[in-house]
């Protein structure tokens, strides 16, 4: 069964807290990884690898640059 956007966002929030120390209260669709959540490029690599594992999706390197906000990532993972 496909996960809902809320479930994906919650999963992303867990990953962001684990690998980058982001406060779960700060995670929302409109938040930018780099500008709002202080996730730098190296930390983003870890976030992507963890998201692939958790959600069973592939996020190619050329797609990562398009994932600027939490909402972008949730939408990408939702499409599978």
């Amino acid at each position, binding site marked *: 069964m496909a996960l809902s956007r809320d479930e994906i966002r919650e999963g992303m929030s867990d990953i962001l807290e684990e690998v980058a120390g982001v406060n779960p209260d700060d995670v929302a669709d409109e938040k930018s990884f780099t500008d709002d959540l202080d996730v730098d490029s*190296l930390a983003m690599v*870890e976030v992507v*690898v963890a998201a692939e594992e958790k959600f069973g999706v592939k996020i190619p390197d050329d797609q990562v640059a398009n994932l600027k906000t939490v909402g972008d990532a949730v939408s990408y993972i939702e499409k599978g």
Partner: protein
Amino acid sequence: MTEVVVTGLGATTPLGGDVASTWEALVAGRSGVHLLEHEWAQELPCRIAAELAVEPSEVLPRVRLRRLDRSEQIALVAAQQAWDDAGLNDDLDKERLGVVFGSGIGGALTLLAQDDILEQSGPRKVSPFTVPMLMPNGPAAVVGLEFGAQAGVHAPTSACATSAEAISAGADMIRLGRADVVVAGGAEAVIGGLPMAGFSSMKAMSTRNDDPTHASRPWDRDRDGFVMGEGSGALILERRDHAEARGARIYAVVAGSGLTSDGYDIVQPDPECRGGGRAMAAAIKQAGIDPKEIGHVNAHATSTPVGDMAEIKGIKRVVGDHVVLTATKSMTGHLLGGAGAVESIAAILAIVEGVIPPTINLENPDPGLDLDVAANEARKVDLNAALNTAFGFGGHNAALLFTKA
């Protein structure tokens, strides 16, 4: 010549998570060595080591820990303590702040852990922090970034002489006018299967697995090799007038340092300690003092059969037969790249407190030991000057001479 003083001390060692607890344990003669329970250790010839008394995870935030090798974690812990101890803050001109911080081996545990991930899960799973975690200049870089040092961040690498060389190089930075304040020291954290198997294959490590606290026994007849420890020491070095202008407490003066190389063998110490002796002589010459003023040597003495007695020859020839020696490795184990800094801190505190920590486990002195050692009990003594020696694989020799503030 510009005078360089020590205004801050920091350490995390097998005896304590800071300088005060480490010093208290040193003076009390407590051993930090124990049997390793880890599964990876069970097949090793040497299954004993001196692990940290306080885990970095008890001190640093979790995400910070993830991105730092263990050697970088403890470098940061020790350097932060030294920084706070010296009363430094962001008022300092960062363009005049330098760092010289070394590691003998670097991020070996990270290299091994990430290689396991590469083998088991493929290249995509290898951490993007792998390279900054395993590079041998990592501890120096992490400390430099923490305090915003911009006068230069350097990472000497000379095996077990590393952090003594770092203190020498840090003092030189100040003497050459390149910095006013330098965070100097070293860190090592390589207690793991491969490093221990490597040292064991060289027959360099003690195999007294059934009696861990008595395994590190410098100058004792029954010594059978060193015991590996992990830890970090950091010193704040400062130009004297800079320290005085801000009213800093001065622990001691870095009166002289000497660095030489053996040109003898990649791992064997020169049995006559010629290079080590020249390093001691160079430190004494730079300080411009009579060797008779040196009351104490915190010796390199690692508890290996050849090295311990070679050093005795060097000390006797260059410093004299009046000094009181100690080998604090009998308690901390051998901190490798962290040894010179932690033992310099012990030598400095010996001057400040008037107490020389004991060399424990010296039950049957080697027949060749004809110098006075603070054996098994701390020795109260007034000191004007104390020497620390550190020698490393590759034939690196360092000697640091500290005098009373």
